[in-house]
């Protein structure tokens, strides 16, 4: 077993917010920028510094980009042994750096790699890790404000005084549980760093600051990493040939669900055309993916992606809680469903109870006309 000693119960000895900045093939992930932006907020609340940790082979050139979104300092470790991601190499470096520099908060994107690495590190560091968070706070007042807006708790249930007493400077990590039926706020009061993986697409990216980027501070810590430290061998890394659907970055998402079952091909074509007219992308419910109508990268919901586009159009989607969990933060929700009692209408800004095969062609026509009219005016 690994020998790693680390004393982390003296929580006052830990300072700074860290973000593990994942890169694949030398490119940053969108989660890095979301986490740096969110980490900036937390570091400001704690009056401390925000640092990115960048591990790879020839990746230092990515550092200014991270600084531009708010990082004060980027720790860069470069080695041919870091060319491909391995759990062992990354876990060793992260844990060694944490032991040396003692950050109080450590964030990872909840990607397939972040969720591989973070638990391994948390187990070695003997600290708490909260999975797949959708909201983070340190400041109690901000957290209380969040609860007022996003929970059914009354003032007694929120218990602001108690929060001040018990969790004043702890990271409050909020996440959906039980398929989105419940929300839970997790704390790690006795150990540091408090660790979280954060759901991709949820945290808002800050504005890019050229001056900050230019003033990037790169730190190259000495580290030890040998081939024997790595117990797995990467034989190949294959990028999917097919273009993945970029649900997370889209301003408009049009999703289809069980309601297209009567004519799947036509339903998908209508959804796609409506998305095209609005400059958006096509998504789908779990049913549409599990039934094989759409590939998994289209899936919106608890087990798929969380989106918050400006416009979300749900076609023939009943609105199971799992689906709502992935789209209810959208700016404007429009739902078309045959069943006027479908739960999707509970969260829709505009609902049309009707047959999508009849309604959508009219939407395509009228949205197109409205867009064209606007384009000619503007």
């Amino acid at each position, binding site marked *: 077993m690994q020998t790693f000693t680390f004393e982390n119960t003296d929580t006052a000895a830990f300072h700074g917010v860290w973000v593990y900045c994942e890169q694949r093939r030398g490119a940053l992930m969108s989660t890095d920028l979301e986490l740096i932006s969110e980490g900036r907020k937390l570091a400001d609340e704690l009056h401390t510094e925000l640092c990115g940790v960048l591990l790879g082979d020839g990746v230092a050139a990515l550092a200014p980009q991270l600084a531009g979104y708010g990082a004060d300092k980027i720790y860069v470790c470069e080695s041919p042994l870091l060319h491909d991601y391995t*759990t062992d190499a990354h876990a060793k470096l992260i844990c060694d750096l944490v032991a040396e520099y003692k950050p109080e908060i450590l964030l990872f994107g909840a990607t397939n790699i972040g969720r591989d690495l973070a638990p391994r590190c948390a187990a070695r560091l003997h600290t708490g890790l909260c999975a797949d968070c959708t909201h983070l706070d340190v400041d109690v007042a901000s957290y209380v404000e969040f609860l007022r807006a996003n929970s059914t708790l009354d003032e007694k249930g929120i218990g602001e005084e108690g929060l001040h007493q018990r969790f004043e400077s702890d990271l409050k990590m909020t996440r959906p549980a039980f398929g989105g*039926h419940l929300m839970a706020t997790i*704390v790690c009061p006795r150990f540091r760093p408090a660790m979280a993986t954060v759901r991709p697409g949820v945290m808002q990216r800050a504005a890019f600051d050229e001056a900050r980027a230019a003033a990037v501070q790169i730190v190259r810590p000495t580290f030890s990493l040998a081939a024997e430290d790595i*117990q797995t061998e990467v034989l190949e890394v294959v990028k999917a040939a097919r273009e993945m659907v970029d649900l997370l970055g889209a301003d408009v998402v049009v999703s289809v669900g069980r309601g297209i079952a009567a004519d799947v091909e036509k339903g998908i074509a209508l959804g796609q055309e409506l998305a095209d007219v609005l400059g958006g992308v096509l998504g789908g419910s779990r049913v549409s993916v599990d039934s094989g109508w759409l590939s998994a990268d289209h899936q919106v919901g608890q087990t798929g992606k969380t989106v918050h586009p400006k416009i979300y159009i749900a076609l023939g989607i009943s609105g199971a809680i799992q689906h709502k969990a992935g789209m209810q933060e959208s700016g404007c929700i429009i739902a078309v469903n045959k069943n006027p009692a479908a739960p999707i209408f509970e969260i829709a800004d505009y*609902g049309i109870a009707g047959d999508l095969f009849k309604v959508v062609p009219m939407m395509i026509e009228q949205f197109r006309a409205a867009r064209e009219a606007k384009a000619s005016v503007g």
Partner: protein
Amino acid sequence: MKVIVCVKQVPDTSGKVAVNEDGTLNRASMPVITNHDDKSAAEAALRLKDKYGCRVVAVTMGPAAAESMLRDLLAMGADEAYLVSDRAFGGSDTFATSQIVAAAVHRIGVEPDDIILCGRQAIDGDTAQVGPQIAEKLGLPQITYAGDIALEDSGAVVVRRMLEDGYMTIRAKTPCLITCIKELNPPRYPSVSGIMECYEKPLTVLTYEDLKDEPLIEPDTIGLKGSPTNIAKSFTPPLKGAGVMLEGADRNTVTDLVSRLGAKHII
């Protein structure tokens, strides 16, 4: 060679979910199922058994009632099962849970050619943390998100590890721990003879007393007290403010929608 498969019984959250007044889940009111990803891991273990004749050992931590799930797995073809169960283990977060399960796996014994399989994540917590944390506590290499598992003649495993934008092919020596996604392979049904035999197969309960001498088991690393994380608040999200149901479902309805969106500068 044996395959140890770690499984969990979970409330079925796909149907109606009952929430208590204090914001916790009303587990008693919900049916329980074997976690999907774990069943896929069990199937992967049984396929290795079909091919290489290895032994399959199922392990779970949970209440006494979780025995029914273990009997199901024995009926599917597992050879023996362990139920790790004690009040002292209750309230464990992923750190403490992995500590206890790792101790149980250590007690069962990990030989050089063994493989430990877990599901990627459980549908109640959705953390995906326990597998990697067991691997760390046992000092084993881990491969998560397995979409395909093969054994080489040398005895090394070769796994297709799924990524959001593709996959990696990874080789690891045994013993190692692999977490399986539910798409890996559809689980089989128990055979009639499997069901007949499942009550004859050994099922051992491991309590705190049984495991307390394991090096991983310390009073401050298990249960609620040994969990680094605590739940500060649990709550239900509010329903979004009521929207507008537009009248009808014809051309005028769509015109109404477009003008409302236009007035709010949404399009």
